[in-house]
Structures are given as C-alpha cells and as structure tokens.
C-alpha cells in the first residue's frame, strides 16, 4: 500500500510538470481527484479497507501525497495561466479602447458659479442671508431710497404681482431685512434669483445676483475695493485689475460700477470686452445714509458698503459662454459640458 501511494505520487508529479495546457491539466486533475474513478479517490477508499492498525500510517502518507500533488497542480496552473496571458498568441487588452464611464449627473453652471461666489465671500467672513422673491414695494424700493415716483425706478423694469408687491428686481431688499433684524457689525451676502421685465439677446427676465453688505464703524470705500479686488483674484486668478467708475444707484453714495480686466485678452482688447480690455462685472457703493436711517442705524456712527454681482455675467466670463439664454434652455448638449 505504501508503495502504491508513493508510485501514484511520483507519477502524478511527473505528469503535472509535463502538462502542456490548462485543458490537459484539468483532465489530469479529474483523473487524479475526480469524484468517480479518480486515482486518489480510489486509493482513499482502499485505505479505508485496510486493517485498523495499518490505517494511521497509510492515511498520513496518503494525505501528504494529496497535499503535495494539489500544491503542484496549483503551481502548474499558475505557470500555464501566466504563459497564456503573456505568450505571443495570447489575447490582449486593447488599452486604447474608451473606458466604460459610470453614468453621473452634473451641476448646472449657474448654481456652480453661485456656490463659487458664495464660498469666496464666506471665506472672507461674510454670512449668507436670504429673502423672498415676491417682495414688498417697501423692501425692494422705498427703504432703498427709491420712493414712489422716483425716476430711478426706471432703471429696473419691474414685474408687479399687486400694487405693493413686486418680483424683487435685485437681492438688495435682503440688506434691508437683515439690518432691520440685526445690529452692526454686519457682514452678509444674499445670493438669489431676481426678476426684470426685460428680455432680449443680452437680457433674461430672470437672473441671479450675489448682493453683499458690510456695515460697522469705520468702514470706507477703500475696504469695498479691497474686498472686491480679492474676490476677482479668488475667482479669476491673480493679475487681473479691478477698477471703479462713478455711477449711480439710489441706495449708495458714492456709487460705482466695477470693471475687471478682460479674462480673455487680459486687458489687450478683444471681442469679449468690445476692444476696451475691461468688462463690467458689478455695481457697488457706500450705503446711503438715508438707507441707514430707514432701518434705524445712525449714519453718523455706522458706515458701510454694498455691492451686487451678476452671477450670469461671471459664469459667462468663467466658462466662455456668449449667450445668456443658454443658461435657461436646459439643452443637455450645453449642460453636459460642465
């Protein structure tokens, strides 16, 4: 019996080493260990028929032989597999084939830009405040130094819901709501959707703004310029200048429009900036003392600045979008580019 075991082991080891292919090796495995008629299977049965005193020794020898042969089978399997994968006729992975991409969604460029702007100001210590889209005439106009019959109201074509209710024309009423509810120091931004009764190639009846307000003792227009210069750097990278031009918004004095050097030509002049090298991106100014009086702040003690940035404008410059309407058409061929 011991010899039969040793003989089978030798035979098996020789044949396994010589097996030319994975198929041949598999046939050999069945020949040795198959449930029916496998050589080791049969031998195991024979051991069971031995006298009790002979079983332990032969059982141990048989197990050693099985383990050794099994190990060898695995080793040879690895060798043959490796040869198959690297040999001259082996099938190859064409790694130039396009990857199978998982189906993922994407954010809309406007909400991405809005988040980007908010993050920039949040890092500078501003906090987010929000207000309703349907505003009272008081919050949208009157408290912002635009009394009824004021010609400045012509600057913002307005949708009316009722005589004293409008779709907010800017997010500036959030300034009023915040100042009525809180005391200085205030450092807030108000991101949101605004409405103007205006629609053509370069205007949409709906657009988005990020309004900012800082009110405290000792705030001046240089701080406004400093904050906005930092904003331009954070959003567009360094090296683009910001300049102020005097302008008029009833709720600030002095008022300014802010231009930054053109992203496309960096000031040299191109089609994006109409050849001037500058693009207008915001309106700003020092909070008008009458606005402070309207919310119960003492303009002798408190000064502050406010600014309003058009989100679409920034998104168009950042992403090289030529037409504002693309943002609202929801054409996947456009949205899937972001």
């Amino acid at each position, binding site marked *: 019996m011991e010899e039969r075991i040793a003989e089978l082991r030798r035979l098996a080891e020789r044949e396994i080493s010589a097996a030319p292919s994975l198929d041949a090796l598999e046939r050999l495995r069945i020949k040795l260990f198959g449930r029916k008629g496998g050589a080791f299977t049969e031998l195991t049965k024979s051991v069971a028929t031995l006298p009790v005193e002979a079983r332990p020794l032969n059982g141990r020898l048989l197990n050693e032989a099985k383990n050794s042969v099994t190990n060898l089978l695995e080793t040879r399997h690895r060798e043959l597999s490796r040869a198959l994968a690297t040999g001259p006729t082996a099938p190859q992975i064409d790694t130039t084939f396009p990857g199978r991409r998982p*189906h*993922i*969604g994407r*954010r*809309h460029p*406007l909400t991405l830009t809005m*988040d980007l702007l908010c993050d920039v100001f949040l890092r500078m*210590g501003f*906090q*987010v*405040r*929000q207000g*309703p889209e*349907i505003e009272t005439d008081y919050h949208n106009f009157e408290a912002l130094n635009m009394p*009824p*019959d*004021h*010609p*400045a109201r012509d600057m913002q074509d307005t*949708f*009316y*819901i*009722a005589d004293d209710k409008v*779709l907010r024309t800017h997010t500036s009423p959030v300034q009023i709501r915040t100042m009525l509810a809180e005391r200085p*120091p205030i*450092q807030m931004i108000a991101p949101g*959707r605004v409405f103007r*009764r205006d629609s053509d190639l370069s205007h*949409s*009846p*709906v657009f988005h703004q990020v309004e900012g307000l800082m009110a*405290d003792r000792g705030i*001046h*227009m*240089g*701080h406004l*310029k*400093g*904050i906005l210069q*930092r904003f331009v750097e954070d959003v567009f990278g360094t090296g683009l200048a910001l*300049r*102020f*031009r*005097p*302008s*008029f918004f009833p709720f600030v*004095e*002095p*008022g*300014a429009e802010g231009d930054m050097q053109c992203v496309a030509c960096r000031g040299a002049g191109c089609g994006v900036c109409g050849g001037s090298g500058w693009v207008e991106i915001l309106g700003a100014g020092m909070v008008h*003392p009458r606005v402070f009086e309207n919310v119960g702040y003492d303009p002798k003690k408190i*000064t502050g600045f406010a600014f309003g940035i058009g989100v679409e404008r920034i998104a168009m410059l950042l992403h090289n979008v030529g037409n504002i309407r693309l*943002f*609202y*058409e*929801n*054409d*996947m*061929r456009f949205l*899937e580019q972001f």
Partner: protein
Amino acid sequence: MKVLWSWLRELADVEARPDDVAHRLTFAGLEVEEIKPIEEPTPTVPAAPPPAGPDHLLEINVTPNRADCLSVFGLAREVRALLGRPPRNSRPARIAEQGPSLEGEIEVSVVHPDVCPRYMGRLVLNIRVGESPEWLRYRLRHMGLRPINNVVDVTNYVLLEYGQPLHAFDADRLAGRRIDVRRQEGEGHLLTLDGQRRSLQNGDVLICDGEHPIALGGIMGGLNTEIHPETRSVFIESAYFDASTIRRTSKRLKLQTESSYRFERGVDIQGVPKALDRCASLIREIAGGEIAQGRIDAYPRRVSRRKILFDPSSVKRHTGVRATAAECAATFERLGFALRRRPRGRLDVAAPSWRVDIEREIDLVEEVVRVKGFEHIPAVLPAVRLVPRAHAAEPSRSAEGLVRDILVSAGFQEVVSLPFVSAQILHVFGSGGETPAGAVGILNPLSEDLHYLRPSLLPSLLQALATNVHHGRRSLEIFEVGSIHTGGTGASTEPSEIPMAAGLLAAPPRPKREAFLEVKGFVETLLERLNTSDAALVAGSLPPWYVEGEGLVVTVGKNPIGWLGSVRSEIAARYDATGPVLAFELRLEPLLQRREVPRKARPLARFPSVVRDLSFIIDEGTTAESIRQGIASQRIAWLEEAQPFDEYRGPQIGPGKKGLTFRLRFQHPDKTLTEEEVNGALLQVREHLQTIGASLREAESGI
C-alpha cells in the same frame, strides 16, 4: 442722451479731442457709451466759431440723479469743471423788447402753485412761421428731434441747449386771452399734439385758456393751440412743474416726452427765465416779429440754495481718499458751488440750483472723489470685528447643496429654468376644466407664456425634456432646485413661496415598473442621506398630473411634503415624451430644517447570517409591503430581515395571481445558527404565509 460734439465744444469753449472728453466724462460718472463720426459736413452756426474738423455724436448715459446734464449746456459746464476750467459766467443776454406790454395782452394765473412752483411766459408778435435754417435743423436732427417749423424747432432747440422744456402756444387762439395753471379735478379729455385723445384724471397738471385745457402741463401741448403756418403771435411758456406729479401722469398715460423726462428728474428752477429769454430772442432772430415788453413770472415761493456743512475729513472717513480742505474747496468752486469758510477747514457749501441731487455731506464727498478720480480710492482689507453667529439661513443653504450633490451622484443632471408658465399650461396640469386658481399671476407679464409663476417645478422639467427630445435625446434624468409660488389669488391670501427639489426620469426602454422603482429608490436614498428618519412613502392623494395608483405621497412625521409617481401620459405626450415619465417633487424646508445629527455606529455581527429565499403565489391585490409587515409581526426568532426581491406573472401562475420571492435573513447575536434552527424559523414563516392564502411554489434555496 445724444449730444453733438460741435455744439458741446462750442458751449464748453475748450480745446480738446472728443475721445479725451469722453474718457473724462466716463470716469466722472457720465458714461460715454459711443462716439459716432458724422458723415455730413458740419454747418456753420451764426455767432459761433467755425466748425473744426468732422463732427461726432456722443451717446452719454446720464444717470437719473444728473438731470443737470440733460442738456448741451449742462454737459459743457461739467466738461469745463472736469478739465479744471472755471465756470463760465452766464450773465443773462440782453433781450430786445419792442412790442406792446405783455401785461395788457395776456393774463396768467397759477391756481395751484404746488404742482407748478414757477410759471413764466413771453409773447412774440408778428412772427412768420416757416422752415428753420439748416444749422438748427442739423442740430435737432442729430440729437433725435424732428424739425417741424421754426417756432417749434426753437423751443426744442433751447430745450436741448439748456435742458429747460418750453412750449409755444398760438396766442391768438387763447380763448379769453388768458392762461390758468391748475390741477385737474374730476375727469376730462384733451387732444394732444400727436392727435391722441388723452384722458385726464384728478391731479394732472393742466394749462387752460379761458375755456378749455390747452396743454398737459410739462408733458405735451394741445392740438387746439398748436403753431400752424398762419400763426402770427406766440405765447412762450417756460415753467417748473412738480416732478412727482409729472411722472405720475406720464406713467399713467404711457407718454414720455423730452419734456416730461426732464421735469421728472428735476430742471433748474433758476434757469427758467434764462431759457425763456433765449427762446424769445431766437424766435425773433429766426421767425422775425417783436417781443412784447415784460414777462410773466409767477414764482410765489422762492427756492433757495441748500447749505450743507462740509468737513473735509469726511472724504477720508467715507472713501479712504486723502483730500485737503483746499482741494475740496477748489473742486466745489469749479462745479459752481458757493462756499463760506468756517473754522478748522470746514466749509458751508451751497449747491447751485441745477444740482438737485446734492442734499447732504455724503453727496459732496462723492463730488470731491468723482472729480479727483476713483482710482485714488485705496484697496485695503477691513479689520473684521465680526463674531459670526449661527443663523438658520446657512445650514439650509448647505443642505440645499447636499440635495444637489446627492442627486448629481445618483446620475441626475441639474437644470435651471425660467419660473413662469402660461394659463394654458396651468390648465393642462389642472385635472381638466379647472381654471388656474392657486397660481400667482403677474400683472404686467412680458408675454402670455410668462403670465404666472410656476406652482410646480414639473412644467419646467417637462419643458427641458421637450427641448432635448427635440434634439434627439430620448432618455433624461434631470432635477431642479428652486422656488414655486402658490396662493395669492384673492386679496386676503398672501402668495407663498416654497423652495422645492424636483426630478424627472424619462427612460423609454425601461418598463414603467422599473422606472418607478428607480425613482422611488432615488427618493428613499435622498431621505436617508438627509437623516429624515421619520419619513415615509405612503399611498395618498396625488396632484392631478400623476396617474392614480401609480404614485406615493412623501411624508415627514406624518405631514405630506411631496410626491412621486408616473406623470399622466397625455401630459407627458404634450412635451413629446416617447415613453413613461416619472417624477418626484419635494418641499425642501421640512427636509432642511433638520439638524445634522452625527450617525451612531452599530456593532458588527460576530457570527455569519443565514439567507433563505422563499417563493410563493399570492393574489394580485396583495402588496409586498403587507406581506413584509405580516411576516415582521410574527416576531420570528432570529429573523433579521424579510425583503421582497422579485415579482413575476405568467400563464403558469394563472390570472389574478402573481409570484413573489422574499429573501429572508436570519442572524443570531451570539452564535452560528444551526440548520435545524433555521428550518424551524422558516417553517413559522411558511405557516404564516399559508394563513394569508399564499401557496408556496417550490423548495427554498439556500445561500
């Protein structure tokens, strides 16, 4: 406002190039938007220097506060100040009065001086109406006014020159040879110069003769006293009307004229006589005739210059710009402000009558910095003294971002839509026959398509679907986060604004059931990720745009906060959908108000669990959920979880029946379950299923 370079240069009396002047104006708050060369030759103007080089037209954006720059003279005054020249001395020109005394000819009475604080007039007799000379017509034409006849043209010319609106009446047609200026009382009508019949209302300013209204004061004259070729004598009106009154009437009648535009913004009340005399003289020069002696000047309450106390240190306080007292004073003087020096560098400043925008010290600060240049404002960062405080708005914003991120990671593309819908769309989304009650309407919509604020995000999502179907895209997974508006139809109800998140899935190759379960899964995931542990999806009443029985109501703490389900096919078909369209709509507030609670980890099972699948046939009407609850209610030992995972129908099962497979997972906390223990538990499940009428299909398979 358009302004001719040749005219501006003449009145400013400076040597400069148009683009230099434009640059200076732009950086002082008067943005020159365009400089257009004029092709035709510049005519020579009597008593003016000969034209120098080609002419240009400057398009200047005059902001509403700068009414003083709505004239060539006003802009010229500004240009001189910006170029550092002293103001020109504008002594009133001597006027050649020849005719009879005005007093005996026409009587003027201002009945309501509150709407007309100053009213002046002159009479010019024996004129000859005809065509204006070329130089005058050239200037009118390029500045946007159509030449009519020499008298009307001169009033328009002086309006452009000084910014003072003027009107010429045919004096012979003034009934009773008198003029009354009054507020309209009650209703009335006036045929204006443009041939329109204008309705008059309480409070409009009217100019009347002895019998009729003859002009809508400050806006437009009446046809009845129009200058015509046979007119021989004209009464010239130069007045100052109340800005708000003019604006109200002009807005109501949707009639904005060169005149009303200037009165609304405020004309120079001290400039009224100068423009009147200039107009009379120019009419005499061009149309001949004699100017009657004397002039009307009804000006009962003199308006005096406002005095403002100015401290030069305020410039630095508000703008960070250093400006000395002397520098400030020089700027003010150049701009025509009157000064009185006070101790410690302070000044009493009186703004000239044309600068109606100067009311406070801050306005003077702006003048100093504007003229000096905004480039002198330093860019510095403020020292922040703010201690950030917690505020409800911020967590909600970040949670809104979380909603977006979850949906994006689930494969949804974000869209942003215009939030308007038409009455027709509201009708489609109603259950049929319903009027658009409950939607918030806009009183002055841009078009019928944009008449209402959307009461649901679904029309927007379907519109996006239609757009993309049009471009050959059939399947789409999109979402939008935005507000909807409802209510506000009656006077008593306030419109409410509701922040929502909604998604749409259009996937024609997928069977409706698969698509439904997919959308349901998205909503479940969203609720789970947002930590809404008391959320549930239950059967309930759905908005009419969902198919009955193919949707669920989303509740949080028993309150409905949204829906999901199949969109009715007749609605989806309107948007060119080619297969089932599934949608969900969720109110964000109940989801976002929840505070972020850190999740607590559960200990992992130390022993393997055993899984068994059980297939059975049951009545079509029995829901998987009712079976799951039934099994759970048996409190079978070690049964950790029982979930339906397959459903099938077919001839081998028979009509009115369906096959279900449940996957059961058994777990013991302290040991590995034996085969006997699992079989015992399984037997209890089978017995329960039999009691509810399920017939077991085959032996369970184990994993």
